[in-house]
């Protein structure tokens, strides 16, 4: 019981530290997504959107909202964990955690919860911004929406953690977000339905994991999707389980953390 309480206190300490970290630098962490997404809504939603017409039977700006929220959640949950965990490695303050009695799983959960908190908070901010441009927006399935929001934030926080474990320089933490995540997100149905693509590109798009995340979230918010929801949810949960195991294994072996 005593040990359990100690672990709980240490976990809460780490989560509080992680949340304080991104709130302290809110101008760098919370404001940019709100500004960027406002520009997307102005340009693609209000200016170009009416010329595009409808997508899957919805106003274009309405169709875009879930995609842009997901894009923000993915990039911010990933960025939070990769930069925070790499920073503690770089500054050697990871030793503060390693010398303490905290179990590896608590260290992992602490960092992931930091990423999830930022991802979900940004998701809420972008949703609030979207209401300025499309005030009549209503969420079709709140339970599915919230579930996918959290699952996505967890999934990409875990990916950020693995990136940080293997990173040896600040370049290493920007390569994957720039050259892998961003292209996959843009091509993952944020701005369009894959039903408008030719068959070849449609089939290629089906191999993009972002498509499943974005479309499952769109199903929750708008009730439309290009993919099977049970399949997409199963895959998200499967990858969360796989990545969690991989993170715990890497922490146990001391890869990137212990000599």
């Amino acid at each position: 019981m005593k040990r359990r309480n100690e672990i709980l206190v240490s976990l809460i300490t780490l989560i509080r530290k992680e949340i304080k970290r991104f709130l302290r630098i809110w101008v760098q962490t919370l404001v940019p997504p709100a500004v960027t997404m406002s520009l997307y809504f102005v340009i693609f939603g209000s200016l170009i959107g009416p010329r595009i017409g409808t997508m899957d039977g919805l106003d274009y700006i309405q169709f875009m909202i879930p995609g842009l929220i997901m894009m923000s959640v993915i990039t911010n949950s990933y960025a939070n964990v990769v930069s925070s965990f790499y920073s503690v490695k770089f500054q050697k303050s990871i030793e503060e955690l390693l010398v303490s009695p905290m179990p590896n799983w608590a260290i992992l959960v602490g960092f992931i919860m930091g990423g999830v908190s930022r991802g979900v908070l940004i998701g809420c901010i972008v949703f609030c911004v979207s209401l300025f441009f499309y005030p009549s927006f209503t969420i079709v399935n709140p339970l599915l929406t919230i579930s996918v929001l959290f699952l996505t934030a967890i999934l990409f926080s875990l990916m950020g953690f693995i990136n940080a474990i293997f990173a040896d320089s600040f370049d290493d933490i920007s390569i994957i977000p720039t050259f892998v995540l961003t292209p996959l997100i843009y091509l993952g149905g944020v701005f369009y339905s894959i039903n408008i693509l030719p068959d070849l590109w449609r089939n290629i798009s089906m191999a993009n994991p972002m498509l499943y995340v974005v479309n499952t979230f769109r199903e929750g918010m708008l009730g439309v999707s290009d993919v099977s929801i049970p399949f997409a949810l199963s895959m998200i949960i499967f990858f969360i389980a796989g990545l969690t195991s991989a993170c715990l294994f890497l922490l146990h072996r001391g890869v990137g953390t212990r000599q």
Partner: protein
Amino acid sequence: MSQFALEITDLKKTYDSDVVALKGINLSVKEGDFFALLGPNGAGKSSTIGIIASLVTKSAGKVKIFDIDTDENFAEAKRLLGVVSQEINFNNFEKVIDIVTTQAGFYGIPLKDSKLKTEITLKRLGLWEKRNEQARTLSGGFKRRLMIAKALIHEPKLLILDEPTAGVDIELRREMWEFLKEINAQGTTIILTTHYLEEAEQLCKNIAIIDHGELIENTSMKDLLSRLDVQGFLLDIDRSLDQPPSIPNFQITLEDPTTLNVAIKKDQSINHLFDQLSALGINVSSMRNESNRLEEMFIEMVKKNLT
């Protein structure tokens, strides 16, 4: 409970680069001891400390902290251990008070208690006035104190300090010595690595010397120093000399016209030297060690090990 604070058995470490850092070290440190772990750069001191603190993964061997096998219950062992690393290992952009309070939280100390403990510890180390400053604004000496504050926040029974006074001015170093003596007197076992051998001689009761990943000495400080065959002394005399006085069986050289450098063997009487100098009309006004005695012994041992 064991009488040993630390027991290391056949500890080995080979890094991924195939560098063999430890070749099978056996070491015991008694509870309440003030123990020096010495060795030249790259000897294996930091690897040993890293393994004890779980910052380095061992290749083989056993480590027990107060009889708790780290392979079986590392969490419990870590609770008894405080480590002051060689390099600064806190977030420079955080406030002093936050760094220490957070460290307490990592040890499972609830926020309310950790705030109180932090206040006591920071006051004890003269850091309370700087509690709201970012760590990066602290001087080197205060950063060292902050490292010690972090290591002591959970009141460990065994404190390991890896070169704690490196780069610290002499005044602050002496203050830290007094502080370490005080917590050792209160019952905390201390293991110290240092390059300042005077520090080890002043503070430590027992000593081990590591070189090339092997333990080449493990004994009491008193015993080690008693093995010195020859000691060098500098004698300040009351008149100028052009050449050193000739006294049978004593090797004397001139450091400068008013300072003699004398090598005295263990079996020689220093009184006899003074008598002889007096007979020559030379009076000694003061006397000091030529250099640190332990340093001489240390260099000698490492040289022997090399050959």
